[in-house]
């Protein structure tokens, strides 16, 4: 019995009960649509978040001063956790890092000289905070960050006009600033910004800086929460790190810095080398140590968490697929009872059990495939809308779509098999007698 005949038989009988077919379809449509929708939103979210992290410098290594986890040594940590009551006095009060705990300029330059083949650049920064630049009625919101010359390179800051901060600016602690193109546009309009003076207002204080460069601000900002008017968007304003320190009145040294490795350097191996290098400096420090980690491992961790999250949600949505499948089974059982006589006639005319079974499984698969296709279209639609609302770029995945088609077909076979088999095994004499 050929496939085409089975298909036309199945379509014919589905058409004969349009309303019933529609309602049965609905179960599968809802199931597939919710799975696809969730998977689409999930993968869009993962891509956007990972993309944003990548933009922050995925290949970079971060070293930061952190409090030691154990009182004496790291090995005790597990014991502390197991027996907190018995050793409660040993859990230290949060210690404040003093100037002697910070990483000094000397340590950083020694470190750099020690690994000339691995380190391409080191980025140092000191955040100052937010402020506003005003010029008459024009204004721009800024986040002021003190940086060294390596910051621009490590963070891929693209200078479109003028230059970035140089070592000389830092040693002289010059009041110079690198501003974003958006900033330049709102303060200076079409006027040449480089060389101009700007006034940065922070609280009661006013600081006067000279613009030395303009960088291209990133266009793909993830803006979560309330939308911000274009002119109110806060952009970064970079000044020499030494200037920032005197602005802040902070001590010398750094709590953290970022290393960009040269191309082809084995990140994991260098991570271990850098860690042991700083461990020597901090061997006598009882409270603090330098912890070296890469963004890559963080990205992997975040990526797998997000994937697990969307998979988990999709699993919950998949429950509705099972419900849909049970609906199909139910309808097929009703349909088979109604068509008992027809099954008897077919058997009397020489239809083998297998032919009857294939006929009803085909019907079930067709319902599932039609439902699957509608569900995929609906699911992608839902995913696009969902991604739009959450502010992510939507990425419907081809793999998920193919998987959904495969799954709907499997549901058709799985839930169609029992009713189809029941039909196939009917006794022809009794089936013929059925009214």
């Amino acid at each position, binding site marked *: *019995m*050929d496939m*085409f*005949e089975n298909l036309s038989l199945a379509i*014919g*009988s589905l058409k*004969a009960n349009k309303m019933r077919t529609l309602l049965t379809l609905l179960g599968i449509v809802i199931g597939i649509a919710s799975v696809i929708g969730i998977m689409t939103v999930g993968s869009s979210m993962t891509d956007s978040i990972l993309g944003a992290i990548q933009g922050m410098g995925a290949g970079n290594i971060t070293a930061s001063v952190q409090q030691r986890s154990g009182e004496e040594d790291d090995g005790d940590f597990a014991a502390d956790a197991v027996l907190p009551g018995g050793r409660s006095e040993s859990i230290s009060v949060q210690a404040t890092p003093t100037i002697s705990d910070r990483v000094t300029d000397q340590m950083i330059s020694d470190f750099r000289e020690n690994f000339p083949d691995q380190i391409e650049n080191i980025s140092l920064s000191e955040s100052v905070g937010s402020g506003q630049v005003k010029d008459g009625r024009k204004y721009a919101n800024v986040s002021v960050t003190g940086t060294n010359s390596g910051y621009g390179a490590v963070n891929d800051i693209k200078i479109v006009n003028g230059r970035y901060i140089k070592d000389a600016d830092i040693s002289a602690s010059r009041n110079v600033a690198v501003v974003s193109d958006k900033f330049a546009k709102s303060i200076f309009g079409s006027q040449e910004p480089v060389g101009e003076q700007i006034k940065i207002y922070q609280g009661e204080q006013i600081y006067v800086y000279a613009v030395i460069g303009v960088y291209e601000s990133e266009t793909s900002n993830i803006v979560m929460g309330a939308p911000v008017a274009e002119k109110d968007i806060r952009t970064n304003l970079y000044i020499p790190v030494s200037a920032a320190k005197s602005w802040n009145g902070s001590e010398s040294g750094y709590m953290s810095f970022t290393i960009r490795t040269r191309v082809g350097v084995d990140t994991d191996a260098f991570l271990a080398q850098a860690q042991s290098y700083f461990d020597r400096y901090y061997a006598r420090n009882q409270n603090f140590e330098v912890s070296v980690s890469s963004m890559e491992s963080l990205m992997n961790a975040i990526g797998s968490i997000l994937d697990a999250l969307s998979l988990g949600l999709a699993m919950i949505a998949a429950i509705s697929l099972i419900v849909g499948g049970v609906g199909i089974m139910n309808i097929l059982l009703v349909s088979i009872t109604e068509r008992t*006589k*027809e099954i*008897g*006639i*077919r*058997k*009397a*005319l*020489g*239809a*083998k*059990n*297998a*032919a009857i079974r294939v006929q009803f499984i085909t019907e079930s698969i067709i319902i599932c495939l039609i439902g699957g296709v509608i569900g995929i279209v609906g699911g992608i639609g839902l995913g696009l809308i969902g991604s739009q609302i959450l502010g992510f770029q939507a990425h419907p995945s081809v793999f998920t779509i193919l998987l959904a088609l495969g799954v709907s077909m499997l549901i058709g076979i799985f839930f169609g098999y029992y009713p189809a088999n029941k039909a196939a095994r009917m006794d*022809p*004499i009794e089936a*013929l007698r059925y009214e």
Partner: protein
Amino acid sequence: MNSENMILMQDIVKRFFIGCPNELQVLDHIGLDVRAGEFVSIVGESGSGKSTLMNIIGALDRPTEGEYILDGVDMGTLDDNKLSDIRNAKVGFVFQTFNLVPRTTALKNVELPMLYAGVSRTKRTARAKELLRLVGMEERMTHMPNELSGGQKQRVAIARAMANDPAIILADEPTGALDSVTGRLVMDIFHSLHKESGKTIVLITHSQELAEETERIISLKDGRITGVRKGSN
């Protein structure tokens, strides 16, 4: 084995509810032979066992005991799939209530046995059209069963029974649901199939009048053959 014998039955016994307190013996040592090209009738009151006998002849059921050879095939050893093949290739059923498949055109109904036999689409459509012309239904090939009268349905059913050129046509009260005029028409088709195509036809009926039209009348009562005689016409 005598190839002249289309149906050869020896000591056929059929019991239901075997081993239960309500065990029922419906056929009691039936011996029956039908020659190729013969038109015979089996007559009996309801409850005489003629439906059960028809089911066994038509390979829908197996006897509890005894030997049944249909067109040279020993039916005692066949499994369900083989029985399906036998029904498909060797038996053409005509039922009292027509039993056309609903929501399926007359043409598709006639094609069905050929579909299950694996005949190609073009061949089965051509043959189905030819058969419908033979029974005078070529005008209504695309009609659904619910658009046909009783006599028309039965003519389609006869065309369907002929589809795979079966060894026997098994007609179970074919005129039972028809008025006398259309019943007459249907009987005439059987007669012409018998005379012109040389078909072996087994007619099961409770009507003595119809039975008289056949070559041989086999009477059945309480599961036993009580008489065999020639038809009067």
